[in-house]
């Protein structure tokens, strides 16, 4: 099962490598990882997407929680949550026809063209990972994707639930 693990940890040197270490050392896989300081600059928030069964997820959360720098760990996919990912994608736009087709997809997926060049557009799109996949697929039907960069998933629980120190 695909799971989204949220981690709140000290924004200290070495913290990130310890988390990554737990995954490689214990043979857990990582689909995506997204990390940045929180509103409180002494803390970092990390979101990890992984595919694993319940037993492995239990081990992942426990092993991550065990790290001295980690304050809180929660499995967002356990309850209602909001998740988003951002993708920047550069596509070739060599003909008028292609430009029109790309523009149509941009409208349908509520994406934005953020940079224009003689032969390409750079497009920004946000949403769930599925939506990003679908968008990339749609673009690839009408033109060539030159490059793409995704942030990995970040997420929050809905309602009152929060990951606070």
């Amino acid at each position, binding site marked *: 099962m695909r799971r989204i693990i949220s981690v709140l*940890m*000290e924004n200290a*040197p*070495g913290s990130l*490598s*310890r988390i990554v*270490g737990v995954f490689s*050392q214990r043979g857990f896989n990582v689909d995506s990882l997204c990390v940045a300081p929180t509103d409180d600059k002494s803390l970092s928030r990390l979101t990890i997407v992984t595919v694993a069964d319940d*037993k492995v997820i*239990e*081990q992942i959360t*426990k*092993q991550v*929680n*065990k*790290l*001295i*720098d*980690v*304050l809180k760990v929660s499995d967002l996919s356990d309850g209602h949550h909001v998740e988003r990912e951002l993708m920047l994608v550069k596509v070739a736009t060599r003909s008028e026809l292609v430009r029109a087709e790309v523009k149509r997809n941009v409208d349908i997926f509520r994406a934005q063209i953020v940079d224009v060049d003689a032969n390409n557009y750079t497009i920004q799109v946000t949403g769930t990972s599925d939506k990003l996949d679908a968008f990339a697929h749609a673009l690839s039907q009408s033109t060539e994707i030159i490059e793409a960069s995704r942030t990995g998933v970040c997420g929050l629980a809905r309602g009152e639930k929060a990951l606070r*120190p």
Partner: protein
Amino acid sequence: MEMMSGAAMVVRTLKDIGVKHVFGYPGGAVLDIYDALYAQQDVEHVLVRHEQAAAHMADGYARSTGQTGTVLVTSGPGATNTITGIATAFMDSIPMVVLSGQVPSMHIGEDAFQETDMVGCSRPIVKHSFLVKRAVDIPEAIAKAYYIANTGRPGPVVVDLPKDIVNVSEEHPYQFPEDVTMRSYNPTLKGHNKQIKKAVKTLLESKRPILYVGGGAISAEASDLVTEIAEKLNAPVTSTLMGLGAFSSVHEQFVGMLGMHGRLEANKAMHNADCILALGARFDDRVTNNVDKFCPHANIIHVDIDPASISKIVGAHVPVVGSVDEVAKQLLKEMGKIDAKAQHAKVADWWEQINQWRSRKCLEYKKGDGLIKPQEVIESLYKHTNGDAYVSSDVGQHQMFAALYYPFAKPRRWINSGGLGTMGFGLPAAMGVQMAHPEAVSTVVTGDGSIQMNIQELATCMQYNLPIKIISLNNRALGMVRQWQDMIYKGRHSHSYMDSMPDFVKLAEAYGHIGIRVTKPEELDEAMAKCFAAKDRLVFMDIEIDQNEHVYPMQIKFGAMDDMRLSKTERT
């Protein structure tokens, strides 16, 4: 505020924490710290001959006292030489602080002379690590290191100290942090009340209970409490290799060590139990054998301070997160008064069954044929030390013979590398034990292979007058490897034979110690007496034993806990 250099701060912080001994070896990056050590008497430095041994000494010191062991080494090779020692402590949850020198901050990352990323190298085998960036942060980093090392599930902590911050020519204000707290680190000590109630209910409903005691009971100093629970329930007690001594091995309820080389009655009792109370044990693969066939009838109550250990290998029916001592107190309180007679009656059939397994006498072995048997050496050691010595061990057949044939009545007497299985651990560990307990009898049970992995420490023993008694079971082979080759590879002894054995007696003498060679069974007793009569000398006993003896019982691979070979020809 007092002003001092970073190097002086390191030593002063150690003193303020109460550290009495540091095991180490100097080098360029730590010369300032060594200079600060020179000027004082509070912290005694012990100069080893190899940094790996420094870590094992600190480890033996910690295992025998419960106090954190301290290591001081230089950057680069000094630091990497401690890696095996750190990993050994990590696997067995032993509190240790390793202070390593580092190249000056401004040269980190430049592949400077003797630069190694020690924080990176040690990351998978430490509980935590610090790279200190400013001299004023030294006291807090070191104080935190000791706090982390010896609270919760203990473990090694590395503190990496760049040379520029310990520079003796710059002074900074020193402040000792009286109180260390960390918002991200608060180990749970007390068990959840609901879980305690559930555990007691399960235990009292059980007709075939067993206590499965591990190293966690020793680190929590919970021996008396564990004994009280066992006696209240009149339940059999088994112990892991790491837990030996937590519950007295001479207590009538003790059924022996369990696992790969466990006693038949211990493994049988585990396999047939209807309730297992695991206290600070982690269902290691050297215990469970095939997990799918593990203890099919048992409700498992798993008490451990590390939540990640619970249900990692075997699912627990009643998980209890907490330290063994706190949880044991809670369990005892919840049990309240138990009608002893009724409880005895409840487990009477269970004991009858266990005594039947015991009557198989699985530790019996054949003497005779003019060769010394390893088992009789351990029995003789037990006799000559009145069962009250500190026994450190190396890794191999001799380790298993020691674990099986020397009944430990007290915790912290059996010092061995259980998790990592580190050959070369024994001698330095026994030295750490002797430093911590100068009056006690500190022995090593070792083999001709293992002893050569840290033999250079015989020089350290001379320098510090450590009267260790080395009991070397010389079978002219890497015996444990050879045993597996006998069993699995049709006796093809690929590289398990050492045909260039040194003369250990001469070797001991060369280092200034006493060496005694024993080759005949009838000489053993007298030689052992001579060894222990030399109270203030190190004695190296080179005991030529039967090369073909195997360690039994032994679990059969892929089988259940209690599928065992009992001798070269018999099995369960």
